[in-house]
């Protein structure tokens, strides 16, 4: 039994006030009469008219008492927990930590599902059950069902998530549910510690199990080679934990670490050269309660080759730079041989230096350097002989990030450049004296066109170290990495890029679920399960690893959770609710007066 507005129970103070009023109210006036004999005799005749006349005084009090109590309880909004139909609302935490197993090998999630199934047995008594799962997202799994079979089927198909717990979202959903069903009983099944909770009951599924977790994998180059580091934390107890290093699925090293409970231990391995290594894995096998954080995998994917067609009559700067980058074959084609050469070959990158094709290739990234004729969307506004510094455009864009990555653009000067008016579909990456000189456009099918509006010979850019970096960025633009991250937390998104020349890109999750990306230059992929994910692009395969959120490795604490069982209106407009309360109080007082007056008048007339 509970109340929607417990504060209204203050109205019950009216009961002692009523008693005080009855005690101090004016007593009967003494009146001496010759004999009370006939008056006493009249009692018998009063009884004929009002059988309960002797009790009238107490009936009035009882009526007033009931009025006060009833109004207080009505105003408070009594919610009977039993006897009537109960709408049970279950919030099931399905975060990764719920995969923690007990000694019997049963996960917290499985235990929660069992408890909910037990609760579902009550639906045969006319109660209804709704289940909100709080995984990466919060949503209804069962909505107001009174069918035990339906509930059991839905619960049987539930799988615990790998990410965090969207408990706030679940609480919002629960609150909306309670607004519609003020008498609902809300139960939260979680392994979090909830310090304070109001309006719901919390079932703690944690049994203080022990867990060891690997986190923060990083691979970085050092003087001695490549250093692979991670952090190892034992949650719940001090433990000696063996850590193994596996390279290309072969265990090559193992060492023990004494971990203090709750203290992160740094782990590092050094490998002389990681070339030829496609997969590095750090793992522990401590027999702890949660397996999901016992392994970290790093995919050391080699860069994809980029076939380049360099159409130039003076390719010395460019060919040197492409050679320095050394990423695929570079075909240097004189401008007069270009029409024939381009018909027979397919390239990932076309660089037109001082020339422009009559018709652009359909596939591949196109770079136009000081083109004699401008592509669509650009119209010539003459030339500028005014020297100037090459400056990154003020407006940041994705192209700017990609093309100017790792570039300093320090003292890069341009002697002269073409001036153009660009349409809106062109993005200015660099400019000289506020004239755009490096522009990028992507067409509807993902083909990217880069235009440099100056001759490399009129610039000191080829003399700068940035030039090689710029070429590398051009190559990365033409053939980008398949994924922008190698380690991702479950629930986070990573960007996958389908090369324009590739047929498709597939992402295969640890559960074997395949996601195929077609005709998209860039797309977002959200990792929903922990473990190694395969990335397959035509014949090329690499991967990335998804880890569970670090916080899921140990017991989390939530300070307070509350569900208001007041109606939506009272919750939204407390001022009006208080005003309504005073109206009720006034009504009660009026009823008390009317009740007594009514009986008094009935007696008098």
């Amino acid at each position, binding site marked *: 039994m509970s109340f929607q507005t417990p504060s209204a129970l203050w109205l019950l103070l009216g009961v002692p006030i009523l008693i005080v009023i009855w005690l101090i109210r004016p007593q009967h006036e003494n009146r*001496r*009469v010759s*004999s009370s*004999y006939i*008056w006493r005799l*009249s*009692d018998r005749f009063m009884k004929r008219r009002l059988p309960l006349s002797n009790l009238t005084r107490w009936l009035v009090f009882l009526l007033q008492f009931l009025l006060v109590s009833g109004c207080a309880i009505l105003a408070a909004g009594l919610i009977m927990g039993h006897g009537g139909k109960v709408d049970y609302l279950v919030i099931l935490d399905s975060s990764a930590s719920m995969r923690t197993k007990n000694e019997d090998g049963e996960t917290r999630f499985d235990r929660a599902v069992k408890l909910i199934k037990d609760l579902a047995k009550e639906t045969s008594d006319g109660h209804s059950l709704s289940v909100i799962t709080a995984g990466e997202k919060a949503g209804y799994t069962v909505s107001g069902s009174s069918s035990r079979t339906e509930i059991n089927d839905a619960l049987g198909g539930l799988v615990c998530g790998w990410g965090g717990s969207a408990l706030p979202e679940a609480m919002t959903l629960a609150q909306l549910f309670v607004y519609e069903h003020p008498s609902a009983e809300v139960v939260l099944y979680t392994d979090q510690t909830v310090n304070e909770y109001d309006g719901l009951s919390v079932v703690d599924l944690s049994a203080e199990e022990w867990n060891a977790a690997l986190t923060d994998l990083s691979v970085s180059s050092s003087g001695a080679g490549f250093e692979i580091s991670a952090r190892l934390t034992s949650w719940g107890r001090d433990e000696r934990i063996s850590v193994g290093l596996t390279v290309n699925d072969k265990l090559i090293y193992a060492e023990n670490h004494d971990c203090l409970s709750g203290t992160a231990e740094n782990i590092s391995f050094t490998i002389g050269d990681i070339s030829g290594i496609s997969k590095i894995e750090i793992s522990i096998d401590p027999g702890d309660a949660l397996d999901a954080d016992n392994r970290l995998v790093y995919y050391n994917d080699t860069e994809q080759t980029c076939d380049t067609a360099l159409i130039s009559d003076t390719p010395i700067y460019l060919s040197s730079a492409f050679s320095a980058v050394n990423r695929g074959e570079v075909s240097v084609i004189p401008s007069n041989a270009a029409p024939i050469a381009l018909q027979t070959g397919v390239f990932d990158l076309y660089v037109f230096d001082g020339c422009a094709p009559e018709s652009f290739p359909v596939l591949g990234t196109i770079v136009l350097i000081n083109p004699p004729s401008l592509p669509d969307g650009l119209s010539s506004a003459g030339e500028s002989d005014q020297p100037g510094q090459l400056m990154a455009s003020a407006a940041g864009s994705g192209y700017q990030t990609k093309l100017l990555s790792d570039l300093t653009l320090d003292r890069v000067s341009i002697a002269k450049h073409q001036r153009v008016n660009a349409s809106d579909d062109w993005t200015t990456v660099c400019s000289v004296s506020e004239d755009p000189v490096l522009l990028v456009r992507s067409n509807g099918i993902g083909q990217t066109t880069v235009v440099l509006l100056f001759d490399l010979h009129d610039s000191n850019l080829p003399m700068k170290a940035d030039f090689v970096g710029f070429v590398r960025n051009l190559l990365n633009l033409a053939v980008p990495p398949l994924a922008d991250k190698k380690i991702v937390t479950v629930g986070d998104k990573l960007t996958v890029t389908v090369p324009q020349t590739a047929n498709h890109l597939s992402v295969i999750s640890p559960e074997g679920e395949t996601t195929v990306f077609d005709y998209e230059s860039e797309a977002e992929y959200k990792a929903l399960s922990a473990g190694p994910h395969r990335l397959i692009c035509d014949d090329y395969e690499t991967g990335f690893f998804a880890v569970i959120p670090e916080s899921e490795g140990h017991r989390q604490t939530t300070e307070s959770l509350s569900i208001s069982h007041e109606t939506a209106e009272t919750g939204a407009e407390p001022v009006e609710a208080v005003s309504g309360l005073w109206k009720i109080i006034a009504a009660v007082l009026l009823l008390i007066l009317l009740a007594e007056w009514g009986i008094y008048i009935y007696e*008098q007339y």
Partner: protein
Amino acid sequence: MDKRNLLDDEMIALLESRDLNIRSLMDGMFGGKRRSAYYGTSMEFADFREYAPGDDIRRIDWNLYGRLDKLYLKLFTDERRQHHRIYIDCSASMAWGKPEKHLTALRLAALIGYLAVSGMDKVSWYALEGNGCLSVTDAVSSRDALFTGLERLGEVQCGGETDIEASVASSPLPGYHDGISFIISDLLTDSDWKSAVDWLLYKKQEVCVIQVLSRDEMAPALSGKLHLMDSEAETEDDSRNRRMNIGRQRMLAYAAAYEWLENDIKSFCNKRQVRFFSVPTDEKLSRMLFDKAIRSEMIQ
């Protein structure tokens, strides 16, 4: 209290032609003019009986002897003096009313006493107080003694509580088959006055009950939340006191109770051939006399 207040000349003039009505033949004492159950020397023929040796031969009916050839004595009724007793309730409740019920009761007692003396009977007044029965005067049989007695009667005060049954039973000379016993009271009492009547009837007395009520008692004008305190109650906690919300319903109930009480008294009295009438205190004594007393055959 002046005797004239109890019995004024106008009333005496009205009473001159009236007499108490005694229904049955009583025993009585010698010297009166009431017919008795005994044969005597009055002028009123009563019966014949056969002569027996020793009888007074002057009372032989010779005419009857001539026709029947047997000696018969001619008997005449005896006329005797009756002794009437008037019991006056002197409880505190009798002190209420405008005028007081007590005064009305005393005036009625004086009226009856005058009629008794006028009829050559004796009369005694008794004040019923507590459980006792106090004689106001010695039995009065002459007019001079009557007025002296009325003075004493006027001095009777009321107060306290009266148990009519016990008081009447404690009467020193209740009489036996001798006159009429009058009970003058408001009869608003928890005591069993009916037993007192039965006791007097057992004594073969004729009984006449006169109820004296004030208008306030017949139709009270009270309303509101009142703690009704009985005048005979000594403390507030007395069980006779009542807290009441007096309204229309209560007044209807009072009227019904009053009607029931009157009918109960009448019924009781009719069953025992006890004369009864009820008088309000604000009614004129002459009206009491001619309207109530004569109609109830108390006087003729």
